[in-house]
């Protein structure tokens, strides 16, 4: 029986930290993104400050738009394409950052080295009052805390009887997600994550202004499991490598049948120009991280 997937109430931080994907098999398969904090998400409901949208790709007619939703814990990319015309119209309607809620499907694009790019493909978007946004954050924090408590409980006594938990009103899906999260993210600092919820509570209490709209939406948010040290800015030499990489990519893409540059071809051509494979990989990772290049099909590259 295919019931409608619930919209998990999560913060941007939790979405950013979710890297374990579960792909369903068969027709109309549902895939899930498992967070370290016990959410097994297909659909989410997120609230925060939504930046004006920008088109993805070179021209506006590509029909794919991206905005950023920021809450006090972080920011997440929200996209909408022509398959979600209403959500796309909503994304495009604003010129200024505004409080908003977004219902949508989570989407993980996984680059090399376990770097994940999480975004929310919007199904519905609405500009809200600040109070409504704060009310949504109440749900997000409350349910996140419920899930964290469940994780603690299961970690302390892994054999806890499921019927006892169910009797308390804990949904079966939560128990399963919590067990999976404990198994697949054994090293996560939950206390640190818990502390990150504090600014959200302050925001609910009205003690802090909405978070800034953040960096321009063309930069895809990238996160490895938290906590993570910020990467040093690229050196001039690295920048030079990047431009060589991009020139080559454009050149190959120009003459290819499908408009994509074949990754193997790029790498072999780079090698002839003195950039060895592992250097090339790191350049590619950086470019993907910055949202300049994307790999929509495995082994096929293009400008984002």
């Amino acid at each position, binding site marked *: *029986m*295919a*019931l*409608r*997937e*619930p*919209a*998990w*109430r999560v913060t941007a931080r939790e979405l950013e930290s979710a890297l374990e994907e579960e792909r369903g098999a068969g027709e109309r398969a549902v895939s899930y993104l498992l967070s370290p904090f016990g959410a097994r998400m297909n*659909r989410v*409901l997120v609230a925060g400050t939504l930046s004006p949208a920008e088109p993805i790709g070179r021209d506006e007619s590509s029909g794919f738009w991206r905005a950023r939703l920021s809450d006090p814990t972080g920011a997440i990319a929200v996209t909408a394409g022509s398959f979600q015309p*209403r959500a796309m119209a909503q994304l495009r309607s604003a010129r200024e950052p505004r409080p908003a*809620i977004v*219902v949508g499907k989570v989407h993980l694009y996984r680059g090399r080295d376990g770097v994940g790019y999480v975004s929310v493909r919007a*199904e*519905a978007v*609405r500009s*809200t009052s600040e*109070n*409504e946004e*704060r*009310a*949504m954050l*109440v*749900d997000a*924090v*409350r*349910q996140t*805390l419920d899930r*964290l*408590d469940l994780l603690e409980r299961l970690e302390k006594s892994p054999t806890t009887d499921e019927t006892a938990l*169910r009797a308390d*009103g804990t*949904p*079966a*899906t*939560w128990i399963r997600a919590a067990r999976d999260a404990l198994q697949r993210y054994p090293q996560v600092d939950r*206390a640190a994550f*818990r502390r990150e*919820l*504090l600014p959200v*509570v*302050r925001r*609910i*209490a*009205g003690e802090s202004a909405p978070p800034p709209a953040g960096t321009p939406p063309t930069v895809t948010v990238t996160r490895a499991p938290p906590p993570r040290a910020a990467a040093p800015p690229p050196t001039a030499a690295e920048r030079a490598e990047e431009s060589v990489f991009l020139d080559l990519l454009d050149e190959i893409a120009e003459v290819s049948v499908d408009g994509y540059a074949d990754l193997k071809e790029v790498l072999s051509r780079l090698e002839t120009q003195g950039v060895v494979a592992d250097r090339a990989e790191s350049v590619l990772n950086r470019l993907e991280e910055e949202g300049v290049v994307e790999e929509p099909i495995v082994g096929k590259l293009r400008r984002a």
Partner: protein
Amino acid sequence: MTVSDTPEPLAETRLRALSVAKSPVEIIARVVQSERREVTRRSDGGRRPLLSGLLTDGTATVRFTWWDPPREGIERGTVLRAVGAEVREFRGRPELTFTWKTRVEPASPVELPRIAPEEFPLKSVRALAARDEGFRVRVRIVRVQAKPVTVGAERRVVHEGLIADATGTLPFSSWSDFQLSGGDAVQIVGGYLREFRGRPQLVLDDRATVTRIDADDLPEPAALLRALPRSIARAEDEGGGDALAIEGVVVGLLPPSGLVYRCPTCRRSVKSGICRVHGQVEGQPDLRARIVLDDGTGALTVNAGRADTERLWGVTLAEARARMRDEPDPSLLEEQLLEVLLGRRLRVRGPGSKDDFGVTITPESIEVVEIDLDAAASELSARLEGGR
């Protein structure tokens, strides 16, 4: 009627006690339903008539098959005595077969076994399942409402409502007027259960008896109707419920929502001027919202009618029709409705049933909920500080 020359001296068996091991039996029971058919014999192609249907004696209802029944047919409600009826089993349930060896004759209703109410096993509401009968329950009438219905050409009144005991609730429909009103504590004997929209329902007819009782152990109707909201995941687990209370946020609308047209006869929605049952009709405009409500644990559908839709939307049917005249695109109206509803926090009460698409509530009340942000903030900050 088939007559046997050598009637076997058998004691009358109650239907509840039928078993293949004790076949053949003598029974006395009332025909609840019967249908005449003909079966073609494979050997010579000859046709052989049979009557099949349901018999009850108040202790149980069983299927019967009557080979070569009387030509004049058997009226519903007739009480029959059958001597030498064979008991067979089909799918684990006993059935009766009347063959040429069986003597069947009309009997008087007074001959039906008179069973003292105490003889029926007392059951709790939770223990009742579809097709149960021959039991006794002690319950509170939570609510009851008379509803005129048309059965074939006949107009009748059915009393619909909800009963409850300490173990649970169950909807009922009564075809006789037992003068029930909300809050009554009653003992019911002689009802039976059927499945309606995937959920069991207690049916009472003129064979049921209802007696007022004194019962302090039964829940108060007000408490049941004002129960605190529970999670949608739980409503899904339990397959719906008769008095669901759910709190969630609107995350979407299902089509058709907004301005719809209904068949004037059956109120079904009309697609391009054609009713599924009544063909070409002049559709009557109506407002509805099929709301997807989500609380983070699950999602369900709330079928809001015109009054609720107008109140939540702030747009009346007349205004919606005016908008439709200006911009004849129903999906635009649905969009405007979603624009108002998306993210609204609603508390919904009413019965809910579950099918392949999940739980659907037919709301008795929909309230817009505002949460106290300051209280929530202090509660959450206490929880955060309490944690590690």
